[in-house]
Each structure stands twice: as C-alpha cells, then as structure tokens.
C-alpha cells in the first residue's frame, strides 16, 4: 500500500464514521431525549444540585422554578422508569463535567428488581450520554452481551424509522426546562393510607446500586439526599412495605431522607386536586412540591444563591423561555 492509498483509506473511514453518526442522529427516536441530552450544554462546574430518579422526579421537580425562587442551580436528570443502575451511571456521567454539592435521589425505583427494564428506557438514558468509558461501562453492565451491538451502534435499533423521519429529526434536541416536564390532567385521589407496621424486603439489585451511589457521593464529597415523591403509594400493595424497610436502613446509616408522601400536609398538597393520575402530580402539585423542596434545600443545607451572578445570567433568560413554555402548555 502506498502512502496515498493509506491516506485515502483513512479518509474513507473517517468520512464513513461522520456519515454514520449523522444518520444515527437523524434516525434516532428522540422522544424523551430532551430531558438528558441537553445536560451536556451546561458550562463546566455550574450545577450545584443533581436530581435523579424516575418520572416521579422529572415530572415533579422543576429546576427553573428552584432557580427563580431560590437561585438554586440544579439539573433534573430523571427519566422514565429510571432504574437505580441507570441513576448510578448518570451520576457518574454528571460528575465528569460538574462538581455538584448535592444529589437528590428519588427512591421509588427501589421497587424494580430488573436491571434492563426496559430496553426503551435504557436507550432513553444511554443514547443521550456522551461517549466515554462510563457509557461503555453502563452498556456492558446493564445490557446482556447479545444486545450490546444495538447500544454501541444504535442505528441498528432505529433504522426502520426512516419512513417516519420529519424535519424535527434533523434539528438539534433542545429544551428550556433543565430536564423536567409536566403531567397535565386531573384525577381525584384520596390521601394514601400508610401502614407503618408492614415490611417487605427491598429487591437486592436496586439496593446494591443505591449503596454504590452512596459510595460515589462520599468519594466526591457530595451530600446525598433521598426523597420519595408524592404518588398514590397504596395502589400497589407491597410499595409501602418496601419503603418502610428503606426507612429502617436510613435510620441505621443516618442518611437524609424525606418521605414527601408523609409530608404532604406540610407541603400543602391537596390529593383531590393536585394529581394528574395516580403516579404523577399535575402542574399545580408540581409547583407546591418544587417550592417545598427548594425551601428544604435552602433552610437545611447551605446552597449558594446564584441569582445576580454574572456567570448565571443565562439562567434568567432561560427562565423567561421556561415561563413561556409553561404558559403555552398550561392553556
């Protein structure tokens, strides 16, 4: 092979990779991508609080309202049915670029014993991570080896979407909420009855990853706060039992844990008005819970108020955009 041929071959392969990346981006199913994808746009070391968990987290806590009310710089890295392993790898991803002082983790997904539940959900997280050793670790840990190829080359997962591609698929994924969203609607619920005496063993898999998150936070001097976001916990028989067992572990380890279902009176939640369905609060409820969490973070922890700082000017502009977005969807 001559030098010219060598250069030609390399050029051919480089162009191939570029084209493949482009085709992969266009063909990707982008539903739910905006929640995590835009995290990469945050300036280095600008985020103080990382929020993690399932839809209970990202459909309840609105970072832009924490900003406007308290000047807290947070990002909601919650995603639909985010298993504890996914939360663990997302946190590892986050601390590659950010130095958060606090992590707020919603513990609802302790109920989920499966690592790769479901492929759609894993894709929604992993596809939105930047390429790194951490992403490779996440894929090889969570997914069985015969499926790896569809995560390393996810065009294999999405190529059949070529018939559904629209103009939007070519545009950059964009969001103004810093990872959160709303659930609209209204369902009349009753305040759940919490039986404190019932105990159900927590599934081993999620608990082991919860310990990993605890260790990761300790190693990085991050204060970890656990929450249980409000939902109709009594619609599933074993849920209260699992969280009763968790409470025991919390006391044993002296962790910070806020069961916001038990605190719903203090929050001012109206179970007959503030819920979209049994699993999620509606925008009204979201406002109340976000406000309460902000107050908690402000009063019990020393979180910096960044309002008025030059480096955070973009947050004020972003709040205006968020406010417009909120007003539009709440019509």
């Amino acid at each position, binding site marked *: 092979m001559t030098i010219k041929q060598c250069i*030609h071959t390399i050029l*051919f392969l480089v162009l191939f990779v570029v084209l493949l990346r482009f085709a992969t981006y266009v063909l990707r199913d982008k*539903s739910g991508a905006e929640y995590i994808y835009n995290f990469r746009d945050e300036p280095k070391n600008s985020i103080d609080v990382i929020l993690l968990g399932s839809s209970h987290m990202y*459909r309840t806590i609105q970072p832009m309202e924490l900003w406007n009310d308290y000047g807290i710089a947070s990002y909601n890295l919650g995603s639909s049915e985010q298993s504890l392993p996914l939360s663990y790898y997302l946190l590892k991803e986050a601390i590659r670029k950010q130095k958060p002082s606090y992590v707020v983790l919603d513990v609802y997904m302790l109920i989920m014993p499966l690592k790769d539940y479901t492929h*759609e959900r894993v894709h929604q997280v992993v596809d939105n991570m930047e390429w790194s050793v951490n992403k490779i670790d996440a894929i090889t840990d969570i997914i069985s080896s015969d499926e790896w190829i569809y995560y390393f080359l996810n*065009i294999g997962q999405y190529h059949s979407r070529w*018939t559904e591609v629209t103009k939007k698929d070519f545009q950059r994924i964009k969001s103004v909420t810093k990872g959160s969203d709303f*659930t609209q609607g209204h369902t009349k619920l009753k305040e759940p009855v919490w039986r404190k005496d019932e105990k159900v063993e927590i599934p081993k898999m999620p608990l082991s990853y919860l310990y990993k998150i605890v260790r990761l936070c300790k190693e990085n001097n991050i204060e970890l706060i656990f929450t249980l976001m409000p939902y109709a916990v009594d619609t599933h028989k074993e849920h209260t039992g699992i969280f009763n067992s968790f409470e025991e572990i919390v006391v044993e380890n002296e962790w910070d844990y806020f069961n916001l279902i038990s605190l719903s009176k203090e929050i001012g939640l109206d179970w007959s008005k503030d819920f979209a369905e049994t699993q999620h609060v509606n925008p009204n409820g979201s406002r109340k819970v976000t406000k309460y969490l902000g107050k908690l973070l402000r009063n019990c922890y020393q979180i910096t108020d960044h309002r008025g700082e030059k480096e955070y000017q973009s947050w004020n502009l972003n709040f205006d955009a968020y406010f417009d977005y909120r007003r539009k969807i709440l019509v």
Partner: protein
Amino acid sequence: MSIIQQAGLDFQNVVLLMLSILGCMMVDQFRGKGLYRYFRSRSWILQWLIIYLIVFAVIIFGIYGPSYDQTGFLYSNF
C-alpha cells in the same frame, strides 16, 4: 394497494422495493459487460459516493434488529 398494505408494507417501502428491483435488473443487465471496469474508471469521489450509498442503503433499509423483532417499539408518555 390495500393487499400490499395488508402485507405490512407502507407506501415508502413499496417505492423502495420497486427501486431496489430496478437496481437489481440494471446490475444484472450490465454485469460481465465491463460494469466493474466502468466503475473503477470513474473519479474517486464518484466511487466513494456509490460505495457509501450501497453501504448505507443496507444499514438503513435492511430488515434486521430489535425493531423488526418486536411488535412495535414505541415509547409511552411516562
């Protein structure tokens, strides 16, 4: 058309199928009549373009992968 739709092919796939058959027929027609030599005598840019086209056609239009295994790979709202 409705029979084709019942077979699980939408409009785009029918067009793709026809184009593919046309492509097959053309290659068949010119095979052994200097098709490869003709291809190699073109500029390298054109050669690359054709190779990329063929490779990406296989990657994108091929019937393989989880989306063809499962019935519906759909995200629900939550």
